[in-house]
């Protein structure tokens, strides 16, 4: 088991002929993911590493017997909203948006439509997700050989506001003998399709997942939402969070890193977030390399 994606997951790549999308497609194929089509308007009939290109999501879905599970969207910011709408309206249920620099309003519109139609958006501004050994959906982990080096199959779920740090954490866990069930790069924007708290029920229901590792940073209320969820639902899963950007607590109003990373009020600070998470029983690590030992300890306490 795993969450969201497994060996049977099929997906398309919207914007497949773009530079980044071509690499992403190759890496996903090399890893063994089922990339069943790509979309670039006006490029129907071509192929990218053997993946057929279509003019529209409708055509791509039709060519796959009317069913495609997911789509990775890698198109310029000005075209992303329409691409997401197109995926949603053609019955695709899992949409990974890689694109960065999309205004919040457009993200909100995509999320609202997705909610109406029963679809889920991961991102924007993310690297996608991976169930090690089964499906890599997005740029997460990079080339297949690098992905295999960092990600191994196991019992830890990862959720991260940083794409790169998802792999850093996975690599650290792997080195310590902890494999991963599913790792999700949730995106670095202020408004994202799926937050930590929204992924928790999925991990909670996955028998393979035994603990969770999280990368978090200043800005937003996502950590508070997670802390609340964990407390209200009496989660069975021990959670270890790494908090980056502690220096930002003293630098109100300055934006660093991701679009969503800014300290505007007290609630945005790492200090406030750490306090909330610890109150909810989430262990907070100061260094990435502390995560495996903290997970070990928390798993030990459970027995």
């Amino acid at each position: 088991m795993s969450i969201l994606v497994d060996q049977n997951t099929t997906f398309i790549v919207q914007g497949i002929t773009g530079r980044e999308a071509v690499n992403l497609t190759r890496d996903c194929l090399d890893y063994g993911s089922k990339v069943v089509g790509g979309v670039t308007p006006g490029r129907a009939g071509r192929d990218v590493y053997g993946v057929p290109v279509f003019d529209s999501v409708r055509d791509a879905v039709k060519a796959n017997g009317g069913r495609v599970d997911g789509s990775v969207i890698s198109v310029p910011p000005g075209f992303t909203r329409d691409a997401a709408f197109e995926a949603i309206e053609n019955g695709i249920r899992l949409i990974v948006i890689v694109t960065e620099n999309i205004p919040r309003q457009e993200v909100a519109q995509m999320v609202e439509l997705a909610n109406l139609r029963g679809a889920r958006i991961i991102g924007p501004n993310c690297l996608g997700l991976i169930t090690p050994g089964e499906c890599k959906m997005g740029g997460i982990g990079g080339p297949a050989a690098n992905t295999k080096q960092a990600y191994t199959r196991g019992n830890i779920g990862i959720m991260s506001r940083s794409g790169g740090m998802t792999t850093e954490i996975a690599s650290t866990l792997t080195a310590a003998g902890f494999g991963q069930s599913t790792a999700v790069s949730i995106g670095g924007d202020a408004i994202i399709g799926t937050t930590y708290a929204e992924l928790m029920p999925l991990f909670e229901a996955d028998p393979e997942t035994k603990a969770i590792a999280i990368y978090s940073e200043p800005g937003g209320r996502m950590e508070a939402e997670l802390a609340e969820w964990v407390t209200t639902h009496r989660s069975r899963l021990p959670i270890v969070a790494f908090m980056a950007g502690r220096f930002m607590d003293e630098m109100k109003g300055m934006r660093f890193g991701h679009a969503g990373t800014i300290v505007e009020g007290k609630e945005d600070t790492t200090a406030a977030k750490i306090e909330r998470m610890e109150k909810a029983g989430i262990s907070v690590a100061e260094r990435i390399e502390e995560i495996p030992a903290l997970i070990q300890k928390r798993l030990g306490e459970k027995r």
Partner: protein
Amino acid sequence: MRFYEYESKALFARHGLPLSARGLAHSRDDARRIAQEIGCPVVLKSQVLSGGRMKAGAVKFASTPDEAAAHYDAIVPIVVNGQACRAVLVETKSPIAQEYYVGVTWDGRAKKPVLIFSDMGGIDIEEVAEKHPEHVSKTHFSTILPITPRIAKEAIGATGVTGDALNRLVPIVHELMKMFLTYDLTLAEINPLVRLEDGKFMVLDGHVDMEAEARGKHKKLLEELGIRPDETRQAREATPFELRGAEINAKDHRGVAGNVVEFDGDLGLVIGAGGGSLTLFDAVRKHGGRPANYCEIGGNPSVGKAKELTKLILSKPGVEKIAVMMNVVSNTRVDIVARGVIKGCIEAGKDPKDVIAIFRIPGAWEQEGFKILSKYGVDYCDRSVSMYEAAGKAVAKMGRK
């Protein structure tokens, strides 16, 4: 990107929101002339990108044009929360019957805009929400359905406002909600929105923030409001060093090598990516290191871009060494960054092995990258050395504890 009050009001005026007669003074003579034209009594307000003006003494009332001129001189030197005064807004002072609050912002949890309304305006809305929750309403609204006046009506009505006041408030609040989405704002706030003794409503103070990502989309508006493209409107304006970093990043669209923020230390940082940079900056500080800068590389920048960024950081006075560090990279290639950084050192007239304190970028194409680094004798490490440890190695080479 925060607007000054006078810019916010210029935007409100375009949408027909009721405003006092006003003028922007850049000199004491301006202040006197405007006061004369619009008629006393007037209020003079420092145009500054910060709240807390009243407390700082940067808002003053004048009953004669001469007094207005004197207040101008008193207000201009006042720095509010580290922000300097850009100009002084002179407005007619009106007799107020009641103050209201209306604001629209994003709620990242609901993933929708939220309209906040209160019939207790003029003070900190958070405080009102805490002490008098029945006087504050929070109403989320859709970004895909049309914005109709009934949402405003319900939000206002929820605080107990009725009668003529309700009917006069609805169009103002409705307009603000529309503006919020039209201009991709992250905050559209009127505080206070006041009812005058004659029953009319007026916007006394406003605060508008536009999303940085949407600046390109609203170029024409920003130009008309006089907001220059290089004004970041962050907590402080960009330094020349930071502007040069932005130039390097903009010159070549491949990947990111920028987001440079200047600090006053001696250890230059060539770090990435978004999350990795935050992690590494913390790590350097935890080891007692003094970063000369923050930056981000990612998304596989070209050799040239990595080179230019390296040169820029090495050109900063006081920078003795640089640390080149990232998390395990996926799409950025280790060899490309290695090549760029080494070239940058050489072009800056430095020996890479002396000036690069540590190179810690594991991941895609690392073998090729490590080969180049060994050739130049640069101290590097792979993923078996954590980000925290790598930062420690760099700080240790700075010769301090």
